[in-house]
């Protein structure tokens, strides 16, 4: 399942979007920055700390987002 080996701790998420920006830049063929093409989506969600973090269907579990998360919101399971 998409991103199933990656553990999300949304309460640590700062909303920096570095995961999404890195996912799109390192995984797209044209090497672009794009929130639409990123396989990880971060949105405001006050019921859950301040942000909600979710993987999209086509996540290939490459771990680039984990490498770019400086807040401990993404770790390997």
């Amino acid at each position, binding site marked *: 399942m998409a991103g199933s080996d990656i553990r999300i701790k949304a309460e640590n998420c700062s909303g920096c979007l570095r995961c999404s920006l890195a996912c799109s*830049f390192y995984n797209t063929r044209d090497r672009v920055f794009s929130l639409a093409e990123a396989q990880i989506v971060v949105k405001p969600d006050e019921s859950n700390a301040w942000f909600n973090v979710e993987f999209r269907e086509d996540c290939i579990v490459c771990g680039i987002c984990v490498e770019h998360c400086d807040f401990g919101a993404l770790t390997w399971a």
Partner: protein
Amino acid sequence: MGKLGGYAGEILKVNLKEKEICTEPIPLDWISRFIGGLGISFKLAYDNACPGKDALEPENVLIFGAGPFVGTLIPGACKTTVVAKTPVSGFLGISGTGHLGMLKFIGYDNLMITGKADHPVYLKIDDNVEICDASDLWGKDTWETTEALWQKLGKQYVVASIGPAGENMAVQASIIVNKYSAYAQSGMGAVMGSKNLKAIAISGSKSISVADPERFSELMDKAYQQSIENQKEVINVFREWGTLRAMGPPISQFGPHEYKNYSEIVPPDLPYKFPLDRFMSEIKRGDISCMGCPIGCKHLIRLLKGDRVGGSMAVSCLVGGFHGFAAHCAVEGWEDAIRCDELCNRLGMDYLSAGAAISFAIELYREKIIDKADTDGLELDWGAAKEVQELLRQMAFGQGFGKILGQGLSKGPQLIGKNSEKYAVHTRGHAIYYDPRRAMSPDLFSDMINASGDRFHAPGWAGKAMTKEFLIKHLGMPPDQADHAVTDIKGYGLARFAKWAEDNATMFECLGQCQMPMHQQVELSVWAVLYEALTGIKMNGEKLLQAAGRVWDIRRMFDFREGRTRKDDSFIARRFVSERLVSNGEDHDPVSKESFDALLTEYYKERGWDLTDGAVKQVNNDNGFV
């Protein structure tokens, strides 16, 4: 144009009166002259604003801008700005935030709004641009507005909205992004309100291309190394405390200087009224970051009071709230200080400007220049938190004495009369952070003459002493000048130095880069090659700084056209030139007008501006921006 990396390449223009929406490519020569973001916004302001019109008339133009770096992974590449003629001074006003980078993903570098809608509207921008009815949102605070738009459109939309303060055109009105991040100073929320524009909701599916991805990737790592890896300790402190770091020793020595409307110096025990251990254990819930920044110097905090007690609030600049309420108004304790911040966020008002206006009112009341009859029964005093909070509401809703305070520190005293101007401490209407009687510094000098809502952060205070090497490699100073500046800043000239630091900060704002001290640790040459790898345009540090200087010129030309002269720049609040600062065992002379004037001459010389009226000289005009 579309082939350039970094830039979206387009300007979106919306005329609210005519309901016209159009896009235009950014001319290439604008990019080479003004870089992007803030620089392009100034050019648009210069070309499109109607000279001589009031800031709150429909002719004013409101321009958002995001530089070429915004939306990339360069650490701290998040800074967006909004500019317009400000109702605070009638000259150009600027404000910035790190949370509207979505602008780039809807495919625009700049968004220019003109005219006034005939009823309240909001702008919805995704793959389409729509002017939508906002009658049901008018009157709501920024939290309610954002929540309503999220419910209607989805949370993928970034929402920049105004609260009642913007609707009622208080000059302290801010624009609040996603419920917390503020375009705080210079009354941009009032300009938005004057256009009947309640909110802008954006969600983008576009992408930002990179000219040379391999090289760009390596250089991003280098920037990460210099700004983050090389100073982990500083970063950790910054993430923990954010701008509150300015409260604790030794920073508090140049932390909140103003106290009780600049009548005193902050007492050394002020920080103890706000125990930092309690902040950590009971108040702070998490870190909040701007787009693309691994530092996260903003906070998620717990509300301790009010109708949403126990709930959370994200805050951008907590120390701004301290300046505004704990220092200016002497409000004590976390509960009330945070409640003031919360009200400001919801009403859409800037902490510092609102606090400064209220501290002015408190002093007038204590000096018996105004009384209960003026304040509708409110008994104002230092630390009277309930009254401070009530005045915040009144300012936002244009009621009671708050209606006068909402006119700001320049117009307000004229309405009050009775020599109240004596107590109005500001620079051309803008509140300032520090007291020049205590110490003049390049950043304070810059703040006093160029007050416009933005300011530069003194370079080098990220725990490192300012060295000659830093000035050469980071500010781009020629070695002989850097030598002089570092051994003898007074002899070199702090006003001369201010010019270099201002250009550096402006370069950051044009690129779209946060200028917090950690990010200043990246070398100028690295910024230049990053730009080159991203955009495909040849660049070096010298050219970046030249462009920043040009951006200062066009900003000056805008103001000059509005009548700004050397006299405006020489303005110093009466208190600073006529009263000694005697407090906490310190005794400081008033500011000498003569020595301030000498600094001004030095500054104009360094900028190449006319010494008599501060006009941009013809020789600077070979940039062809007129």
